[in-house]
């Protein structure tokens, strides 16, 4: 098995495989994870197959700890409930689990992010006269506001990593306290409802984390990219003083699991 646990060399994996592997590393054994469709599903399943067999996955449509035989294409998919511990509904997911404080880790995507981790997945432009409409929050803001840690998986582009996002769908570490609109820390808004917040952003170029003041910093850079590449694709002044090295590539076993066991139909991994 030592062969399988070897890291892949350049060319032996696709960018999406590295994303899945990096995301999987964010899952601790025993974590209760609240996740969306797509890459998060692959990442959690990969973690469960490897180092986190007791991680539990909640999907917002209402399935808890399912063990799908076939990759779901929707969090409300019939496939989600196979061997689940519970099949309920959204009230159970958002209040019985999330609001009650049981969720350790959220796995989300977003269109824009700022240096405090505020994420936009609602509109581009002024909300009252938008230029582009995305999906809207769904569970994004709920999960990001209440999970102890949240990982965002995003595309690395300068226009997506910006000084200020057009619409704050999901709260980062500095947010506005409504209805007054003054900027304060997340802790100040949430008081004793505070559970944690955005911990990690994983893109196709790098992994970012947040410091004690709630500001984003560059942690690792993916193989094939440089720190400068990342800086060039971030729209705000990025803290690169804490770079810890290169992002680990996926292992051969991970790639095999992804293509042979987790997504053999080629739904997310074409």
């Amino acid at each position: 098995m030592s062969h399988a646990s070897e890291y892949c060399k350049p060319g032996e994996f696709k960018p999406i495989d590295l994303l899945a592997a990096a995301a999987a590393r964010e899952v601790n054994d025993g974590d209760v994870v609240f996740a969306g469709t797509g890459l998060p599903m692959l990442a959690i399943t990969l973690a469960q197959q490897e180092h986190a067999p007791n991680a539990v996955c909640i999907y917002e449509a209402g399935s808890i700890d399912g063990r799908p035989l076939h990759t779901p294409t929707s969090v409300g998919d019939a496939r989600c409930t196979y061997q689940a511990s519970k099949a309920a509904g959204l009230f159970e997911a958002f209040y019985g689990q999330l609001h009650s404080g049981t969720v350790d880790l959220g796995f989300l995507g977003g269109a824009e992010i700022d240096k405090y981790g505020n994420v936009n997945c609602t509109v581009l432009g002024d909300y009252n006269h938008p230029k582009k409409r995305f999906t809207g929050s769904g569970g994004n803001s709920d999960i990001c506001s209440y999970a102890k840690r949240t990982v965002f998986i995003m595309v690395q582009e300068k226009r997506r990593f910006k000084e200020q996002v057009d619409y704050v769908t999901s709260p980062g570490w500095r947010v506005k306290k409504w209805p007054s609109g003054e900027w304060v820390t997340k802790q100040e808004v949430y008081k004793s409802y505070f559970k944690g917040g955005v911990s990690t952003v994983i893109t196709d170029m790098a992994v970012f984390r947040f410091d004690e003041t709630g500001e984003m910093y560059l942690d690792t850079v993916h193989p094939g990219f440089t720190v400068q590449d990342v800086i060039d694709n971030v729209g705000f002044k990025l803290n690169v003083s804490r770079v810890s090295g290169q992002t680990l590539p996926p292992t051969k076993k991970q790639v095999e699991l992804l293509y042979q066991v987790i997504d053999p139909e080629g739904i997310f991994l074409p």
Partner: protein
Amino acid sequence: MSQPKKINLAEAAALVQDGDQITFSGFTIWRRPVALCYELIRQRKKDLHLFEVQGGFHSDLLVGAGCVKIWEGAWMGQEMLGKIGENLARKQISGEILVDDYSHGHTVGRLMAGALGLPFFPCALAMGTDIFNPEYDQLAKAGLRDGRHRNIPAKKYIMADDPFFNRGECALLPAVNPDVALVYAPIVGDEGTVRILSQSYSDAEVIKASKTVIVICEEIVPDSYLRRDPAANLASGYEIDYIVECPWAAHPTGSQFYYDADADFLKAFNKIREQKAFDEFAEKWIFGVKSHEDYLEKLGVRRLEELRASKISGYSSRVKRGTR
């Protein structure tokens, strides 16, 4: 209360009045009352006010057809089969429709408050986001929060302290009680007991919160079968008003243990970017069919058989889903 009345598709859609606030069963692309939505479009309903926990094919369709004036919800799209609700996006940008965004926790809480007869639901989710930004309160900006509109609360939310354990502020979100619920459930008993199979989404709350409840189903069965396992039932006959029996009523959305979501159909729909293309779609699949049976014939046996769920797994193993 009396038992629900059995009616047909046209009669059911006729119960929805222009300007009504309506809501739906299901989740994104699962268990949506699509056949009823097609019929609403055929009957050219106008000015509908949609309140949705989240949208999907059925409601992006109503928006595209010009039936909708206000959309309140947390999300619109078709998950992996089309990330964005393109019709809502187009009409929000053009200003043809009022959009008020919430988080899933918010819409679920508002609906639950309505279901239970509570005035509001307390919730600390999504605080600090632009969902709470008063500048973005579209219904207030349109002057609709003046207390004269029966389905529009005077405020989008208020913040409230905790007088008991001093935990800090949370939001109180107003209850919602739609005029009509359009519900798809796979099975209804002849006394009106409603059974869904596995995940319940927000269907029980949709039924309880709404003033008039129409349930469209795959099959009506003797109630006594459903009463053998009362813990598995979703609602009782006196909680619903009308039943429509209509196999494949949720297509192209899925129904666990009956059929899978029709990915090709949904992906094709999601490619629509302009009104002209939408109108062509509507002509082909809504106005251009004489009846629901005709719609099924147009889809064809082969397509339907591919989508049909395994009685064991609850989903189709015949439909090709990925690249391998």
